[in-house]
């Protein structure tokens, strides 16, 4: 069953009589799924190119919003019925729905819109089953359908593009008005052929990307008719692939160049490339070449060496031969190209680096100037420093961290937290921002910078932290109060200094910023350099420079600043030295475009927050002007690692090697659990709310406050549960040194006794109907649970680390005894794993056992220490998320649409 269309087609409906009707100025378009990933970039370009032909779009749940374009806003409705009821008139529907929604979208379009004439389906991978129904529905209701899996239609004369992205983001570049109609099975080649034709002076009338699914709804026969009826089209180019008989019975009255590609596809046993480009013996590439050769009366393919053609046409198998073939065919009819050639198809090498290898001449083509506007863009590459990330919705997405759901191991910038645990705290902090670990020299510099701002004595932030502490807040709230006082004004000078340094040195090709002897006389003379020095002396700045020397660290940026200070007779502020160190650390990845310039200028702010967070963990009683935990600031800068400082802020003393290692491992392990964790969500939400599309306005310190407020007694503070559990087991054991294997305790007996006790408790609780009985912390895991003996691979990794160091931990040992005892006493059906949270608890308890046993610290202090340790570690991952979201996110992208929210009564 079908409607009657134009006269030549009696067996099926065709409504279009001429190519001039395919994409007209009168067409009004509704785009389905207008806000989808592909449409979002394509639709505005089409709308602008076509003078505003898109009257509405649909996106469920987004009714009332609009897609903003330079040619005006396009209103968005929930569905087509709503648009029609609102009085919007359209005769064309463009389908960007996912494959499973295409058939229903087409049926709905036909149902609700009596004015509908054309449907263009862009979607790839529409099931054949749905294509059958789509075809039948179009036939039944007299609607011309294009695609699927096509790129739509463009009329260069009408300056109209409907559907997909023909001509890409700059259609005028490729769609030059002329006399040639293009029909192509390949969307990309539709544009590429137009570009190739222009090199021989041929422009286009209508370009049609037909798609190459099994069902081509608007195919060669009806296109050929419309081509003949279009007076503007004097000739045509057809690009066809094997499979299907669409071209078999075509007859032409005007000249045509047919390009048939895909002889190799005869080998295929399944489609590769276009879904419909799989052929039997009768419709393979050889067969199709024959069809066209017969139509054109030629006995061979056209090649530049053997230019066989008639005035009817030519057959080529290489798209590069199309322009010459068309010119030859048209010459036989005495017709000349539409305009002077635009460019040519010769080889144009735009970028080349032989890496110093002597190559044969043909393999080393000269680099030529690219066509406009690409030449300007290449020229400006030298100006652009660092990476520029594409902005996208970063809700529940991250370019910094990723958790593998199978292994439960999170990676931050590609480094698994297990590997992070083998790096020092300061290395991980730097890596979270520059996406790779600093070298030994970089670590020295980082330690100077981080330690320089730790002492908070006399700073309002410390007073805020103290006040917050005194009013009974948990450590996250206390630290948030301090971090709030590191606002944009406090870091303005540093950020500007970092940006100035990048600007001064971006064109000096320096591979290693630690190199000495760099000639920076030009930079010393630059006017903006003056912004880096101050009239007043700065104690901190001088101390930092002294510490850098004392550590034997090298930095070209520091050398430059010192030379500048000497030249101007002025001084360097600590903030500027911090900026120099940040620029040094970020330099290599910045030059390789792995980092953005924004990240480098924000790094001093991140560093200041790191220092503040660590510094404020110690109360005001532990710091005074010039001294932090009884250590002189200058000494901290010269000889302390930031890990040591962090340990000292928490526990009051410099750690020994064993404690330092344990602390370092601990902090590395808790770096991140991916973008889905609450702490990451808090950090990302804070950035999102500031609007990262204006990144200079994002309050980096507020990002950290977001992280801190999104931790709490259930997230981060729960580490204490396992410690409390272990304290109950060991409190009266008389244990002296948890690091000594000769502790004299019978751990197996302790574990068995507890397992029996727990079994009794559990049975009783169950008998009483209490199903929320207490669980043993840190054993078992929802993923690692189905084997006879289970292991959490993360725990195994860390256990191995300590074993190889010969470092013993009695609490860890106890946990392994416990899971065996639970199995043997029948509490568990298999041997549970000891999970990674146990590792965190046992490391921490081992560090704190001695002062605890001696009564020097209370349970409350222990709980605060456990929580704060978590915050230190998680700060690393949060830094990565904050920086990533600032670089990639869109304004308010973490919100959830109202339609996805639930009301619960």
């Amino acid at each position: 069953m079908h409607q009657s269309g134009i006269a030549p087609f009696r067996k099926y409906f065709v409504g279009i009589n001429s190519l001039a009707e395919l994409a007209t100025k009168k067409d009004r378009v509704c785009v389905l799924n207008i806000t989808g990933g592909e449409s979002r970039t394509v639709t505005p370009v089409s709308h602008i190119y076509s003078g505003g032909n898109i009257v509405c779009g649909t996106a469920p749940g987004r009714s009332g919003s609009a897609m903003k374009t330079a040619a005006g806003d396009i209103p968005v409705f929930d569905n087509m019925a709503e648009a029609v009821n609102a009085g919007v008139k359209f005769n064309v529907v463009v389908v960007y729905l996912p494959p499973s929604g295409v058939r229903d979208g087409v049926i709905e379009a036909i149902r609700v819109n009596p004015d509908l004439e054309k449907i263009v389906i862009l979607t790839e991978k529409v099931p054949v089953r749905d294509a059958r129904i789509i075809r039948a529905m179009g036939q039944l209701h007299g609607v011309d359908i294009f695609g699927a899996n096509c790129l739509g239609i463009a009329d260069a004369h009408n300056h109209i593009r409907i559907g997909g992205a023909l001509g890409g983001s700059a259609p005028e570049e490729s769609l030059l008005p002329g006399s040639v109609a293009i029909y192509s099975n390949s969307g990309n080649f539709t544009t590429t052929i137009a570009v190739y034709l222009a090199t021989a002076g041929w422009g286009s009338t209508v370009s049609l990307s037909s798609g190459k699914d099994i069902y081509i709804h608007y195919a060669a026969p009806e296109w050929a008719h419309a081509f003949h009826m279009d007076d503007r089209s004097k000739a045509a180019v057809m690009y066809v692939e094997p499979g299907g008989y669409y071209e078999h019975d075509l007859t032409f009255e005007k000249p045509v160049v047919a390009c048939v590609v895909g002889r190799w596809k005869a080998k295929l046993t399944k489609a590769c490339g276009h879904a419909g480009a799989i052929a039997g013996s009768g419709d393979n590439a050889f067969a199709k070449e024959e069809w066209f050769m017969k139509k054109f009366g030629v006995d061979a393919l056209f090649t530049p060496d053997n230019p066989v053609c008639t005035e009817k046409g030519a057959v080529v198998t290489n798209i590069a031969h199309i322009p010459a073939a068309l010119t030859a065919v048209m010459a036989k009819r005495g017709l000349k190209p539409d305009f002077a050639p635009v460019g040519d198809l010769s080889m144009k090498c735009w970028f080349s680096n032989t890496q110093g290898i002597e190559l044969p001449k043909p393999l080393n083509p000269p680099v030529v100037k690219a066509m406009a506007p690409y030449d300007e863009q290449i020229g400006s590459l030298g100006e652009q420093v660092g990476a520029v990330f594409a902005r996208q919705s970063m809700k529940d997405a991250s370019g910094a961290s990723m958790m593998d759901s199978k292994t439960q191991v999170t990676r931050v910038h590609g480094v698994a937290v297990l590997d992070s645990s083998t790096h020092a705290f300061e290395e991980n902090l730097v890596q979270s921002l520059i996406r790779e670990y600093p070298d030994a020299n970089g670590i020295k510099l980082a330690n100077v910078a981080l330690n320089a701002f730790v002492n908070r004595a006399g700073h309002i932030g410390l007073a805020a932290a103290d006040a917050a502490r005194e009013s009974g807040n948990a450590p996250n709230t206390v630290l948030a109060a301090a971090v709030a006082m590191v606002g944009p004004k406090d870091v303005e000078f540093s950020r500007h200094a970092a940006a100035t340094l990048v600007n001064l040195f971006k064109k000096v090709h320096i591979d290693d910023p630690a190199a000495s002897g760099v000639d920076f006389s030009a930079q010393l003379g630059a006017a903006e350099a003056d912004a880096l020095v101050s009239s007043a002396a700065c104690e901190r700045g001088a101390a930092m420079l002294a510490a850098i020397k004392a550590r034997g660290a090298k930095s070209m940026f520091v050398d430059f600043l010192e030379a500048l200070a000497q030249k101007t007779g002025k001084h360097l502020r600590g903030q500027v030295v911090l900026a120099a160190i940040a620029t040094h650390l970020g330099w290599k990845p910045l030059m390789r475009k792995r980092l953005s310039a924004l990240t480098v200028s924000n790094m001093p702010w991140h560093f200041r927050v790191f220092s503040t967070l660590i510094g404020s963990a110690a109360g005001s009683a532990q710091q005074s002007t010039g001294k932090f935990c009884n250590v002189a600031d200058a000494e901290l800068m010269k000889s302390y690692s930031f890990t040591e400082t962090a340990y000292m802020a928490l526990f009051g003393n410099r750690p020994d090697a064993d404690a330092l290692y344990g602390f370092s491992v601990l902090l590395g392990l808790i770096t991140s659990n991916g973008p889905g964790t609450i702490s990451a969500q808090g950090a990302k939400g804070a950035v999102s709310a500031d609007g990262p599309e204006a990144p200079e306005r994002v309050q980096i310190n507020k990002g950290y406050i977001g992280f801190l407020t999104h931790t709490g007694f259930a997230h981060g503070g729960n580490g204490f549960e396992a410690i409390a559990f272990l304290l109950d087991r060991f409190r009266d054991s008389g244990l002296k040194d948890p690091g000594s294997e000769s502790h004299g305790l019978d751990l197996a007996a302790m574990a068995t006794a507890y397992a029996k006790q727990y079994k009794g408790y559990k049975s009783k609780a169950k008998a009483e109907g209490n199903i929320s009985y207490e669980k043993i912390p840190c054993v078992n895991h929802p993923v690692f649970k189905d084997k006879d003996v289970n292991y959490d691979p993360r725990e195994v990794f860390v256990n191995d680390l300590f074993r190889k160091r010969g470092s013993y931990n009695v609490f860890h040992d106890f946990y392994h005894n416990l899971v065996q005892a639970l199995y043997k006493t029948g509490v568990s059906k298999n041997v549970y794993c000891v999970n990674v949270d146990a590792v965190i608890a046992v490391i921490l308890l081992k560090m704190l056992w001695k002062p605890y046993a001696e009564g020097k610290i209370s349970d409350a202090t222990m709980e605060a220490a456990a929580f704060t340790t978590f915050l230190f570690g998680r700060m690393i991952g949060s830094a990565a998320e904050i920086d990533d979201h600032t670089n990639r996110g869109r304004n308010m992208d973490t919100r959830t649409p109202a339609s996805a929210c639930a009301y619960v009564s």
Partner: protein
Amino acid sequence: MNITGMLYGSKLLKLVDFPTSKVLGPEADEHQIKDMIAECGEVFVKPIFKGGVGKKGKSGLLGRAKDVGTAMKEKERLYFAEHFHNNTKAKAEGVTFEGAVPAEYEIYFSLSDSTEFRAPTVTLTHHGGMDIEELPADKLARIPFDPLTGLKGFVISNGLKKIGAPAELISPLVQHLPKLWDLYHFYGMTMLELNPIRMRSDGKGRLTPVACDFKCSFDNDDPNVARLGLPDDLDTSSYSNFELEVNELRTYQGQSDVFVINEKGTITAMTFGGGANALVTELLGDAATISSDFGGNPPYAKMHDISRIVYKYWLNQSNVLFIIGGKANNTDIFETFRAMSDALRDHFNAYGPQPLYVVVGRGGPNLIRGMSYMKDTLDSLGIPYQMFGFDSAMSEVVNFAQAVDAWMKNGGREIVAKQMGLSVQQAA
């Protein structure tokens, strides 16, 4: 995915209650075969090929037995039989034993979507059991029908009358054949062929169609196929591990079609667009490891995954990593180039550096940003490269990649290795 043979064919036909011949799988023991011979008088022994393999009968790959001894001998002969058809070699993995169905008539039946009619089309003849291509047109009914109503009895009846089929065939076929539409349409098939259907008599003049061979193709893009719950490895013979791994990434945004061309190839082409895929693969010939189409604007994560898998399987043996496409309409060159570059860096980190030459030909949105990112990556990895603008003829860029491959084969690989500071072993 394709299925041939009655082992699974009979299971699928049972879903729509279509009668089939009796079938035993390769595990059948002598007693079962004996019973089948006793019941049916004769068994056919057929090799099992995974995927779609035709013309087996013509190649002598069909055994017949009226006793257990012969059946077992045929089993031995055919169990690992090899068959060359349509440019591909297939190796059997077992045999089926199928009970003979004595009949006077053999029917050919198929359903497919015709590009001529642009509608589902039934092909039917009572001159079945032979190559359909060899039949004259007047003995064959090809009838398109409306998918909104489906395959109805009148379509079958009209078709059979048109080719003068005996009257006694019409009623049983009108009764049974429409069922096959349900199997075809609702389980995501693109082709279904039963040849032959043998018309079994009940001795009282009543005939029943019995399917005695089965062939079908499924639509990879149709989620309804999953409703059949077919085992994953049913058609794995036609997919390499590489193809299987890439196929897992199939989502609607961004193509991820690959096909292994030559396991010993030396140019690995990351090709963008169906047209470029057709053209580049043709020009590269056997130098190519794979044929690929990664167009359709894949997001970064997907492109990174694809690149990771491609590099893992093919980079080590490759002289040239060839990134090629036309002037993209919508594929974001920055995102795709960034993903390929990052994956290349990750690959070098994980597997160590190797001598390699990179040739690029591409156009599209954010082109210079994309090329620049790749340039920076290749510079930092020390890999030589040339990148060509989209106004260079694509075929010439392919020729250039081939020339680089030839140079690499003739000592260039060692030179690149030396320049990259790699040892001889790493160069090999």
